[in-house]
C-alpha cells in the first residue's frame, strides 16, 4: 500500500522568513512523480510544485523549492520569503500509477 506521512500537523513562520514542510512516503513503484498542493480556505486545490522521481535535481518554482531524497523517500517543501498569501493547508502527494496519494497535510500560518 502507498502511504504518505506529513509529520507536522501545524507550522507557523514569520512573514519574510523561510519554512520547510516535511514529507515521507512509501511506494513500491519505480515510475512516479511527486507533487505539493496548497489548499487555501477556499478549499481549491492548487499545484505548488512537482518533482520527477527519476531526476536528481531538485525542482524550484520561484520562492518554492523541494529537497527530494529518493533513497530515503523524503520530499520536503521549502518556502522562502514567506508571504501572507502562503497561509494554507499543504499536501504532499506522490502519484504511483497516476493516482495521487495524499498525506494528512500541514497547516501553515504566516505571522505578520
Amino acid at each position: 500500500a502507498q502511504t504518505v506521512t506529513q509529520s507536522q500537523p501545524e507550522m507557523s513562520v514569520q512573514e519574510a522568513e523561510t519554512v520547510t514542510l516535511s514529507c515521507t512516503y512509501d511506494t513500491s513503484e519505480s515510475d512516479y512523480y511527486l507533487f505539493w498542493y496548497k489548499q487555501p480556505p477556499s478549499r481549491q486545490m492548487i499545484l505548488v510544485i512537482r518533482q520527477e522521481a527519476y531526476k536528481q535535481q531538485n525542482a524550484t518554482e520561484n520562492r518554492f523549492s523541494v529537497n527530494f531524497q529518493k533513497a530515503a523517500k523524503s520530499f520536503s517543501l521549502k518556502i522562502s520569503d514567506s508571504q501572507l498569501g502562503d497561509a494554507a493547508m499543504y499536501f504532499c502527494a506522490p502519484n504511483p500509477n497516476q493516482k495521487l496519494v495524499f498525506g494528512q497535510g500541514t497547516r501553515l500560518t504566516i505571522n505578520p
Partner: protein
Amino acid sequence: SQTIHQWPATLVQPVGSPLSLECTVEGTSNPNLYWYRQAAGRGLQLLFYSVGIGQISSEVPQNLSASRPQDRQFILSSKKLLLSDSGFYLCAWGTGFSGNTIYFGEGSWLTVV
C-alpha cells in the same frame, strides 16, 4: 485551455436520500477522471478512478458509486446516503501520463443530516 467544473457546490441531504454530484471537463479528450473525498481536517482519499467511458475503478469499499456516461463527464452517486458520507468531494482530471499534473474542480460540500 482546459477547465473542470463540478456541481452543486453545496448540498444538504437527509439520511437515506439519493445523491448525484456531476463533474465535466472541457478542452481535452479522453482524460483520466477522479473522485476524491476530504473529511474535515484530513487529507484526500481517492474514491473512484476512470480511464475511459464506462471504465470505473473503485478504490475503497463504500456506499457510493461512480459512472462515466460520456468522455468528459463523471458522476458520483448514492442510492441511500449515510451520515458518514458527509464531507468535501473533489473531482479531478489528468492526461494519463505519470508526469502530468492532476487538476481539481472547485469541490462540493455534502452534509448528510
